[in-house]
């Protein structure tokens, strides 16, 4: 699904991603209306970074974002037992490992 399909004027609506510190990933915090990407960054700064400091901002046009469908959300959750992927499933090893 292209997010431009649900967003009116998607070419001039930019998603804003904010990176709090270099130790963090960029997180979507909202959107701005702007004629182009440069202006979107200028405007995003005060709408989304005026209180809490951050180190970096990204902007992306809505029409350039593709997304999965919420109808398919079940696909994003494992259906069968995948506990073997998690360390917590190996209790004995954990006990030995922790003791060291």
């Amino acid at each position, binding site marked *: *699904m292209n*997010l431009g399909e*649900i*967003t*009116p004027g998607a070419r001039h609506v930019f998603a804003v991603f904010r990176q709090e510190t270099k130790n963090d990933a960029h997180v979507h915090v909202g959107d701005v209306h702007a*004629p182009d990407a440069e202006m979107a960054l200028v405007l995003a700064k005060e*709408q989304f970074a*005026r209180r809490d400091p951050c180190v970096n901002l990204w902007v992306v046009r809505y029409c350039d974002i593709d997304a999965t469908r919420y109808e398919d959300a079940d696909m994003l959750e494992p259906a069968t037992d995948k506990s073997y992927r998690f360390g917590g499933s190996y209790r004995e090893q954990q006990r030995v490992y922790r003791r060291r």
Partner: protein
Amino acid sequence: MSVQHDAPDDPENLAAFESRLAANDRVEAGEWMPARYRAECLRLIQMHANSELMGALPEREWIPRAPTLSRKMALVAKVQDEIGHAQLLYRVAEDLGKPRAQMIEELMAGTSKFHNVFHYPAETWADVAVIQLFVDGAAMQTQGSLRSSSYAPYARVLKRICYEEDFHIRLGLDNFKTLAEGTPAQRAMLQDALNRWWEPLMHFFGPHDQASPHLEMMMRWRIKVKTNDELRQQFLRQFVPVILEYGMQVPDPGLRWDEPRNHYAYTEPDWDVFKRVSRGEGPKSRARLDLRNRYHAQHRWVREAVARWEMAA
């Protein structure tokens, strides 16, 4: 895109939607939703956005007159937040099917509403304190409850909005306290503001809810989370003590805590006034819209320039 109120929804989709909401699931912009649900969410959020944009006006009149440098900066920051909230909310409303520019045009034309409380004048500096503390305090009740709205994009922006409203209320309390502990003239100005704002505040949450299929549906769909009376009582419980603590008067001789019924009893405000104001016949309804229209018209060439730039970009 116009929203059809009576477009029949596919019964299977509708049943699935109802059971999802019953299981506490939330709705995202691109998902299927009943036409009625879309229309109600859009109406609510568009009006909320309008109210933030128009709600900036009474206080902004006092920015040039704020009596200290720090009051001036804080007031600009506060009004700026309201404009920022309008930005967030129009964006959410937009994805329900109406472009932002169209919503602004509807506001200008008077065909979409903004909240009753913003149809009143802000006559003195004390009005700023009362608006920040009590109007924002009232708004916090509604907005706080709607953080559990079923419409996820709305619930998400309300988290940030409530975070900022908390600053407004604290700022308001600081302003209120300064005047309440100030000179006799400052106290008198504060009491006068409180007297004038009390009825609009009692109107804030709307009339008593009447049981109806519409109300039942709004609650079931979690577009409305608490009743008007619940919110009003919540507001009174939080803010009547604040007024009394600073030795100010609640301008309602009928207001008292009713212990057995565990709520505040109060004198009914005049609901005919409420209806008139809702129709846009409040003391400042016309003037505020006219002012906004004047600037909107003044900026026409800017919008055209931006549109030309967009084409070129």
